[in-house]
């Protein structure tokens, strides 16, 4: 049980690469915090700084308020699960599980009991006498989890622990992780590049890019109110449509006209007045509504360039103008084919606006 804090943490690698740039962030006691971002965003480096495997170039790292910035890894009482599992290949599963306990001077009889209890929880009890080379990928992943769990540390650090699993196993393992978090009620700090995994596991998710925190929020808030263009495009699949537009106030009534490549729409929201003239308009493919008939009101139309069946729905690429394409998630009974024309509505309460200069969110909250 512990609260983890990063205070103004910076990490510059030899050669001058800035991996982490002034990150201040708190992981609350018992929270499942996920760091998500593309490769090179500094998420793994932050985790390793917390584990004590990398020394930060600047800033402070705290566990339960205590400054551990220069403490050795073994003094921090954190457990880590590595992406490639890092099981000790010359030791059996039992020895792997007991290693951390032995290093901490736990008695042999107690080590035995605790290792066996964890092995039962994770369903690896029959494998205790095997060596890692004799295990399947899923089993190794469980042993790696077990090795962390058995120590009952202050917090768990997990570095993409599911990324080496087959897609089929991954969903099960994800559910298992969520279950273990509830059961242990311990702080989890989890790193992944997979936004879906981040959304499904995290109590809160921190989106990182180029060593900086872009937004820290619960998953649904990230989705509904992304703080900037990067978060908007990174979170959610398929990615949000973002187009450069102009916003023009119409009279004093509060209406605003938004014009962009291939569409033209009106907002009656009073707050729309706050929009700068040049803006980026964003809408999720799921929020675009296909409309039927030639007479129906519409905000944009175009020619269907590609229809990708996805089982439960269709992903449609709609070409509005020679330069502009809109992704639309349409119901499976759409009844339109490639080459057909399609009209869509862009519901005002589903629109997101970003400042084209720095990408930050502006104007009326598009989310409900």
């Amino acid at each position: 049980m512990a609260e983890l804090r990063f205070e103004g943490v910076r990490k510059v690698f030899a050669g001058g690469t800035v991996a982490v740039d002034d990150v201040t962030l708190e992981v609350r006691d018992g929270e499942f915090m996920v760091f998500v971002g593309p490769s090179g965003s500094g998420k793994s480096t932050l985790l390793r700084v917390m584990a004590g495997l990398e020394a930060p170039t600047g800033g402070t790292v705290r566990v339960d308020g205590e400054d551990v910035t220069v403490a050795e890894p073994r003094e921090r009482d954190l457990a880590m699960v590595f992406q490639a599992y890092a099981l000790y290949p010359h030791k059996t599963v039992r020895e792997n599980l007991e290693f951390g306990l032995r290093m901490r001077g736990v008695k042999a009889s107690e080590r035995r009991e605790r290792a066996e209890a964890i092995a039962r929880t994770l369903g690896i009890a029959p494998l205790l006498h095997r060596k890692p080379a004799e295990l399947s990928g899923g089993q190794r992943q469980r042993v790696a989890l077990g090795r962390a769990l058995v120590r009952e540390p202050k917090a768990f650090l997990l570095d993409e622990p599911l990324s080496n699993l087959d897609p089929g196993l991954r969903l099960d393992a994800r559910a298992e992780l969520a279950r273990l978090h509830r059961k242990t009620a311990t702080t989890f700090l989890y790193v992944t590049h997979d936004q879906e995994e981040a959304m499904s596991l995290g109590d809160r998710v921190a989106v990182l890019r180029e060593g900086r925190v872009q937004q820290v929020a619960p998953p649904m808030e990230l989705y509904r109110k992304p703080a900037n263009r990067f978060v908007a495009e990174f979170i959610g699949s398929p990615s949000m449509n973002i187009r450069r537009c102009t916003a023009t106030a119409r009279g004093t009534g509060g209406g605003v006209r938004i014009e962009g490549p291939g569409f033209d729409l009106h907002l009656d929201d009073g707050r729309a007045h706050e929009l700068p003239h040049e803006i980026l308009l964003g809408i999720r493919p799921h929020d675009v509504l296909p409309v039927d008939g030639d007479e129906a009101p519409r905000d944009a139309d175009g020619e269907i360039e590609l229809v990708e069946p996805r089982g439960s729905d269709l992903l449609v690429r709609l070409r509005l103008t020679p330069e502009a394409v809109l992704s639309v998630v349409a119901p499976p009974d759409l009844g339109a084919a490639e080459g057909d024309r399609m009209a869509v509505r862009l519901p005002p309460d589903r629109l997101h606006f970003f400042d084209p200069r720095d990408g930050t969110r502006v104007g009326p909250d598009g989310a409900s």
Partner: protein
Amino acid sequence: MKGARRRLGLSVVVLLLAAAAFPLYWTVRSSLVSEASLFQHPSLLPSPLTLEHYRALFQVRRFWLPIRNSLVVAGATTLLSVTLGSVCAYALARLRFRGRALLLSFLLAVAMFPQISIVSPLYLLLREVGLIDSYPGLVMPYLTFAMPLTVWLLVGYFRQLPPDLEEAAYVDGAGRFRTFWEIILPLSLPGLATTAILTFLYSWNEFLFALSFTVGPERQTVPVAIALFRGRYQVPWGEILAGVVVATLPVALLVVMFQRGIVSGLTAGAVKG
């Protein structure tokens, strides 16, 4: 096509093996015939066979003395070199410090010294400290050549172990030394075995230092002893060859024994397969 290529490869291997093994065979064969028949018509399967040279070797020449000396010197050199060298190599492989690359090239440079160039200074030095004709007087000079080799080989070996394993051990609560002892060394057994064999072979075969820094048979090693077999008027070829056979045996045995330790793929399963 495939079969033909296989057969070609196989015959090349057999030829190479025969070329390598023939001198060895000829040595063994010649050590088992009488001095007189050594220079008569050579035949592959001579008769009669005799152990006369071996008897002379051990009864007249007390050949067990140089064997003991060689075992002590080579064994001590190997033990010290691998023990000290592995710790040193681990530091060079994993710690980040200023001048590491320079230190490594310096080590290599030391090993590249022509031996003959340091025989005289070493002799003077050893005489000064009273170590001429002693075991340390051989082991220490050997270490100057064996250690750089050991360190270089092991640095390469340690570097290719996944650093994840050490990091996992640190987070699990092990310090640097425990990690080295419990994780690195067991995983490095193949590398350690290879290094040990090379060091042992080097020390076992070394001739120049052994000749220069020993005085009498009490401390002479096998190569020196064999070299000194030749008298003023005759060369006892039979005994020399018998000595060579006896000197080759422990080394051959050692290689065969350690070969079991050289198990590749010991790290399989450490990281995802």
